[in-house]
């Protein structure tokens, strides 16, 4: 099994190399004549007001948290799908209970309006 992953690791290395190569070519071949105006962050021609890094609506965090939970659920579904045909109907019941709980949570989120984007 390990041998199968060796090309994968190599591929990642090649991809990193490709990225570095492109960046380096660009930095070397490209011109470099910076001026203050050119380097200013784009703000439709205005002077940049202040640090652009600002606090965000908590909704984004909520989406990220919900994503983690549902991502975990998918992680559980993968092994289930592979053994489903071996275990038969009991696997269906087991996963049914599992998903039912999450669907209840999902219904709750939905009804509470956490998925509304105002």
């Amino acid at each position: 099994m390990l041998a199968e992953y060796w090309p994968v690791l190599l591929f990642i290395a090649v991809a990193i190399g490709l990225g570095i190569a492109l960046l380096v070519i660009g930095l070397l071949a490209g011109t470099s004549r910076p001026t203050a105006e050119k380097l200013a962050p784009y703000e439709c021609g205005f002077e940049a007001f202040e640090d652009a890094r600002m606090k965000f609506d908590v909704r984004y965090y909520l989406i990220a948290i919900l994503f983690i939970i549902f991502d975990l659920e998918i992680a559980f579904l993968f092994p289930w799908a592979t053994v489903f045909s071996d275990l038969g109907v009991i696997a269906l019941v087991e996963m049914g209970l599992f998903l039912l709980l999450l669907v209840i949570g999902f219904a709750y989120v939905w009804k509470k309006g956490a998925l509304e984007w105002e």
Partner: protein
Amino acid sequence: MPTFNDFLILLPEAYLTVAACVILLMDAFLKGGQRVAIHWLSIIVLLVGAWLVIDGQPATAVSGFSGMFIRDPVAEILKVFSLLTTALMFIYSRGYLRDRNINEGEYYALTLFAVIGIMVLVSAGSLVTVYLGLELLTLSSYALVALNRDSKLSSEAAIKYFVLGALASGMLLYGMSMIYGATHSLDLATILHVQNVEWRNLMLFGVVFAIVGIGFKLGAAPFHMWIPDVYQGAPTAVTIFIGTAQKIAAFGMAYRLLDSGLGAYAHEWRMMLAVLAVLSLAIGNLLAIVQTNLKRLLAYSTISHMGFLLLGLVEANPAGYSAAMFYAISYALTSAAAFGIILAMSRAGFECEEIDDFKGLNQRSPWFAFLMMLVMFSLAGVPPLFGFFGKLLVLQSAIDAGFLWLAVVGAVFAIIGLYYYLRVVKVMYFDAPVEGTDVRAQPDMPLRFVLSLNALALLALGIAWGPLFAWCQRAFGITA
């Protein structure tokens, strides 16, 4: 392969899960006035759950799900009392939540989920179920502590609780992984019977970490740092949960891990627990003296009570366990009443939690002053109240097991503890009320009635403690 029988063993837990989901959905779908149904339904759910636990209890211990879940008399008693104290808490908390605009639906649903966690934890037959039950319990508790979102104190308490709790869970998990490494098993019964552990040192390391985790969850010194801040910062309606049902659960966890799993190492962990017990007694009782906030006082009192509970566990024999369990129950019922009185006295915009708020309570509501006196006496261990017999039985079993010095330490600190409980009583009866305050109980009839019943039960169970203690003894296989 799991069978239908496995699910039958799990019936009370499955029922509570369904109920918790129903309540969660009711919270999401019901509007306005209908939501009062959630409150009453939650209480009924808990009482029916307690009935299911008792009614379906098999005569001997049975286990299901490949030994992961054990249903035995010990679990039965612990479950019944955690369900009952949670029901008490729901009755006490209603007005408090309404006055503070805390979302009730989530409060009830999260608490029910936490109770499921307790039930899994006290029935655990494997390291995995111990850990998952614990996580279910604590995760819900973190959210409950933070539920009062407009209060900075509540958020701060939640963060402290969460960080330290996560650290403790990490320690426990680390210990479990070592135990697994040494025994190649997650099953507590198998771990107990593994002969000639290949790596004894690794195992001992695991035991140490498990003790750290248990110490954190019990709130025993020196792992008590979170207790005062969380007790004070959390909404009182949540503090009561941490002070009652959670303590019962912590006892259950200690028993499952230490006796059912690591019983072969009793010689080692007894000494560690003895150290924890002495430290808890000392720190809890001494620091409680200087507190002016009643919730903080109760927090330090909890630490000292956990010291007494550990005195029972230190014996590592059925007599000690049954005394400790009796102690956990007596403490849970008493502290339920104590927090119930704080809840009854609080109202919108006013938290009745400073000791000064209780000044001259006797002149305003003599009945509640009387109830408070009963509670304080029970916490202090004044005969003939419930708490007295808890302490007595624990000390007795310590002496029987040859831990005379521990019993002496316990008795000395019990006397020191008397001071700060009596101070509260003194304030209520002999001080004049602070001018301009108007502290009196809420006109909530169910609350007044049940609270009175709860406090009087402390007296009744103190006088007739025999049957309950016999029940505890039977659970551990002692036939009187």
